[in-house]
């Protein structure tokens, strides 16, 4: 089975985010980046499916040159080769634009299965994979917690709200967006890191007529909906005061 996994590079969770001077994005020039977490689960699922059914795993990512870092990481974890769509315009692009960039690079590969994470930690659109399925003209299902493959048919467990699930079947080729927690992630081994250096990365430029569908007019810190009473002092002082407040004022303990 020829499997593609789309991964996004995002600013690490620990990075202290500040709005940039234009107030349309965050200051990320010196930030550290990582693989978007749901995409890491999608990669893991692809590697497991390859181990069960054979074939190859191709990691695909769209973004500026720095995206090479997450590609290397995916190759070190076991992906076989990579497609990287490189453009600075893709760093802050909307889902439709990213999906178009990916689709034009992926179409000729005719993948049997395309996996993505269900959403990204930065923009959180939850739709790049779904739009990609439309552009590739293949069926899709989202928020998947288990994947079964048999005879060009997928049977997948889709998460619904509030602890409910549903099995959905469809023919391949198909696209699935993967929910975090579907599996346990593996880490790259030293051998994997060494092997990654020899793996093929195809770098492509997106079409010049790629245009945004959405414009961020301003990015800002949300107004607080509630006044939080912050309890100050040393850990001991704060703990004593919190216990007093919960007991005497809130009366919840």
């Amino acid at each position, binding site marked *: 089975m020829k499997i593609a996994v789309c991964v996004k590079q995002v600013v690490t*969770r620990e990075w202290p*985010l500040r*709005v940039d001077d234009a107030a349309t994005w965050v200051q990320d020039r010196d930030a550290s980046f990582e693989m978007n*977490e749901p995409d890491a689960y999608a990669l893991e699922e692809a590697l497991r499916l390859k181990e069960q059914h054979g074939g190859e795993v191709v990691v695909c990512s769209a973004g500026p040159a720095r995206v090479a870092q997450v590609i290397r990481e995916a190759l070190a974890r076991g992906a076989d080769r990579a497609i990287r769509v490189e453009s600075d315009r893709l760093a802050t692009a909307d889902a*439709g634009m990213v999906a178009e960039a990916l689709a034009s690079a992926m179409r000729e590969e005719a993948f049997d299965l395309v996996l993505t994470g269900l959403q990204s*930690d930065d923009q*959180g*659109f*939850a*739709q790049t994979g*779904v*739009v990609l*399925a*439309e552009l590739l003209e293949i*069926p*899709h299902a*989202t928020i998947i917690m288990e994947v079964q493959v048999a005879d060009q048919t997928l049977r997948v467990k889709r*998460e*619904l*709200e*509030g*602890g*409910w*699930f*549903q099995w*959905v*079947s*469809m*023919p391949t080729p*198909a696209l699935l967006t993967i929910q*975090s*927690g579907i599996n346990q992630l593996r880490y790259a081994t030293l051998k994997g890191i060494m092997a990654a250096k020899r793996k093929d990365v195809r770098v492509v430029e997106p079409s010049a007529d790629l*245009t*945004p*569908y*959405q414009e*961020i*007019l*301003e*990015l*800002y*810190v949300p107004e*607080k909906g*509630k006044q*939080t*009473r*912050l*309890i100050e002092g040393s*850990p*001991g002082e*704060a*703990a*004593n005061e*919190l*216990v007093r*407040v*919960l*007991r005497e004022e*809130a009366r*919840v303990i």
Partner: protein
Amino acid sequence: MVLVIAEQRDGVLNKTSWETIVAAQQLGQPVQVAVAGVDLQAVAAELAAADVEAVLTVEHPALSSYTPDGFVTAFAAVVTSEAPEYVLLSHTYQTREFAPRLAARLGRSLITDCVATKTREDRLTFVRPMFQGKFVADVAPTGPAPHFASFQIGAFRPDAVSRGSSPAAIRSYPLELDASAIRQTVEPPFQEAKQAVDLTQAERIVAVGRGIKGEEHIALAQQLAAALGAEIAASRPICDSGWLPMDRQVGSSGQTVSPKLYLALGISGAIQHLVGMKGARTIVAVNKDADAPIFEVADFGIVGDLFEVVPALIAALETES
């Protein structure tokens, strides 16, 4: 015209559809509501109570169970023929699956997870969280209509819906649909083996998030829970890592709780978690990041290292009780 796509299952309207109608009514344009499925008379009659121009029922045997292919095809036909300027939905698991594809099929895009609308420079702008709720952005669609947007559950109050003096007209939409083009087949929804823990009944909950750092530290939170007479719970990443079982998860994919006390340890407060606990009477957050979104819903907060604060809390509870 603003078209609201309402959501129903087995004849039961998803109450978030009312929230979307509220969002639509605020735009000052005529509103129509479309709903897809089979046997929609009752749902349509319910929706017709809202002050809207019309309710469209989009009925077809192939829509009796939701499938992404079926709903994309059906609503693409509706949007094309009705030609709304805006198409609004609630950001549910179902619309997350079909609405991006619906917009893409029509060559348009969808702005997801919005919490409000506003007008900036004469453009209708959608306000949505970014970076896990640490920021919000004013986002404007570019290009021609229709513009698609979905609203976060709870962004509007369903009881704020403006009701009409008489029921709105109900129109049956003449849908032609090739059922063989629907590639997904679905099985009935099910729940995993009965939840062992019913967090909804808990009076007090101590919940842990990524800040707990390792499985070996869960015991510390459990000690605090024991000292408070509380149940232990967690945000999704903790259960994903297997540090606590899935039935301890609070949030959109877990349980929705409203205890007297909710004490969040090292939980940043992504919206998927907040929707599951913001109904708690008293919310306390302990987090080292003063900018964490959890402080937006917390009544009391301690900005600090939970590995120092929690032992101090346990000591304080033991000495003072």
